[in-house]
């Protein structure tokens, strides 16, 4: 085969593979959404699940997922920003910083099931929080923190050096420089990254099986007192999230319409993740325009 023919064949193969991957995604999304869409209705989205009868919904699970995400972000954002600022601004080059970097890298590649087991042992049993939203949020914090650190670090590294130096030259303290000069500039990158990370948290299930639990008490959506055990806002109640529900329905679902429920719930989950993705892009662009005055 001449070099030119080989070139043509190889190019064709590579383009075909790329097309295959695009089709794969299209097929996946199409399958999930079209199969599930028929089952999604207002009733499905708001009613409680049934164990043995058909016609159960995913209302509490959807609420739990969103509430858990909010709780996780409340804990993760301050910690992740702080650690990221330390890594990019305060850490001095050397052995210590290198080993901290290694720690972050290792933490980010821990299997989520191991994080879940750690949560079971330490947060649920040792600290005595039991199977609860709060335990789940802490486990997800451990799972999400390395990502948050990396996002902050990269965002701060993108700030022009001159702006930082100008601020320091004006006599501002380092901390003031970081919070009032560098953070606003890096905000678009941080917000985009955080929203994308939220999508990941939203779909996480393995770390939650043994921390947030696999059941949800009968919630009373008229009771908004966070201390009452049936209130949806109580962070110390067990809570099954949407992703965990999909897993449970698939592996031990007894309801006759388990397959449809799984399909509907998967579609809802994927649509939420897509929403996170598009919001992140759109918001990042808006913020970028706002902070840099470009058109």
């Amino acid at each position, binding site marked *: 085969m001449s*070099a*030119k023919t080989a*070139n043509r064949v*190889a*190019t064709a*193969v*590579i*383009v075909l*593979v*790329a097309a295959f*991957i*695009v089709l*794969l*995604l299209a097929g*996946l999304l199409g*399958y*999930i959404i079209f*199969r599930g869409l028929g089952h999604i209705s207002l009733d499905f989205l708001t009613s409680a699940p049934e164990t043995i009868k058909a016609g159960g919904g995913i209302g509490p699970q959807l609420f739990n997922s969103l509430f858990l995400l909010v709780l996780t972000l409340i804990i993760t954002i301050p*910690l992740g920003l*702080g*650690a990221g*600022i*330390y*890594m990019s601004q*305060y850490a001095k080059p050397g052995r210590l910083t290198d080993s901290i970097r*290694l*720690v972050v*890298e*290792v*933490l980010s*590649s*821990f*299997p*989520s*099931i191991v*994080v879940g*087991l750690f949560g*079971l*042992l330490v947060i649920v049993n040792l600290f005595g929080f039991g199977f609860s939203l709060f335990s789940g949020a802490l486990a997800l914090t451990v799972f999400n*923190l*390395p990502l948050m650190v990396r996002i902050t670090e990269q965002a701060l590294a993108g700030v022009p*050096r001159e702006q930082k130096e100008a601020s320091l030259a004006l*006599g501002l*303290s*380092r*901390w003031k420089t970081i919070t009032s000069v560098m953070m606003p500039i890096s905000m678009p990158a941080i917000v985009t990254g955080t929203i994308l990370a939220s999508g990941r948290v939203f*779909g*996480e*299930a*393995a770390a939650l*099986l043994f921390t947030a639990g696999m059941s949800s008490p009968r919630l009373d959506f008229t009771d908004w007192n966070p201390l009452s055990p049936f209130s949806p806002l109580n962070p110390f109640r067990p809570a099954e999230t949407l992703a*965990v529900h999909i*897993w449970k329905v698939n592996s031990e679902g007894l309801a006759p319409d388990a*397959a449809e429920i799984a*399909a509907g719930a*998967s579609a809802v*989950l*994927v649509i939420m993740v897509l929403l*996170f*993705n598009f919001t992140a892009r759109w918001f990042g662009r808006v913020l970028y325009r706002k902070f840099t005055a470009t058109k």
Partner: protein
Amino acid sequence: MDQWAVKQDGNKPNLIRKPSKQHIREEWVGRVYTALCILFLIVTIIAIVYFVASRGLSTFIKNGVSIGDLLTGLKWAPEGEPALFGALPFIFGSFSTSLLAALIAAPLGCCAAIFMTQIMPGAGRRYMQPVIELLAGIPSVVYGFVGLSVIVPMLRNIFPGQGIGLAAGALVLSVMILPTITTIATDALAALPSGLKEGSFALGATRWQTIYRIVLPTTLPALLTGVVLGMSRAFGEALAVQMVIGNAPHIPRSLFESTSTLTSVITLSMGNTITGSAHNNALWSLALILLAMTFIFVFIVRFLERRNKR
């Protein structure tokens, strides 16, 4: 590098105003707060390793199971008489699914990366990049659900057996790790100095010759980094695999026979065992193996990255 080069000159105290109290307080707030955050991270990882190791090792210390038996034993009967803790089928399952997944995903990911950087950079950035990001964003339970409702029936129709098993697990995992491999390969190919490629073109080489004689050999360590990271993700993935692999505790004789992985057996049994029992401790030992493998994968990646820098 320390970029904070604003030092007070100690010899000329009269010329430079001392920083105000507020200034000093701000500095301390920043330092203490960020140091506490990073301390939290470090304490967390030490706690994870300590707790998992202490529980995982008690199988060997308290329950008297030998390490060799656990790693090479073929029979897993933790509630039996006598209780047997042979975890080799699970170790085999984890390694074979993640290896197979990497074998499927690596060529696809590398082709996608070549497409995005060498053949059609414009279309690559515009269409391929979002596709890869969306693939990475789909939750693992959804992959498991699609695997269960599409891949398993398909395999059942084409091949003998129930459809569940190693092949289904590897196929699901390969789609899940494709974004990891593609992203890292794309970064590596894009970072290649353009002089190398132009030199090859100037000598009259075709694009394909340039790619497989110059581009791929130069970026090989980085491509391998992507593959190892993908494998490490596949190794630790729990629910998607558990849904399609069948969960039978033995080494399969074909790709289409039910088997288990380390993660799947932990997922299924952890909730049904009593804390402190031999069965429960044995599951923690499996988690310890997972943890140890994570460390090994991280060190392989570090080694490859060092090779790459040289």
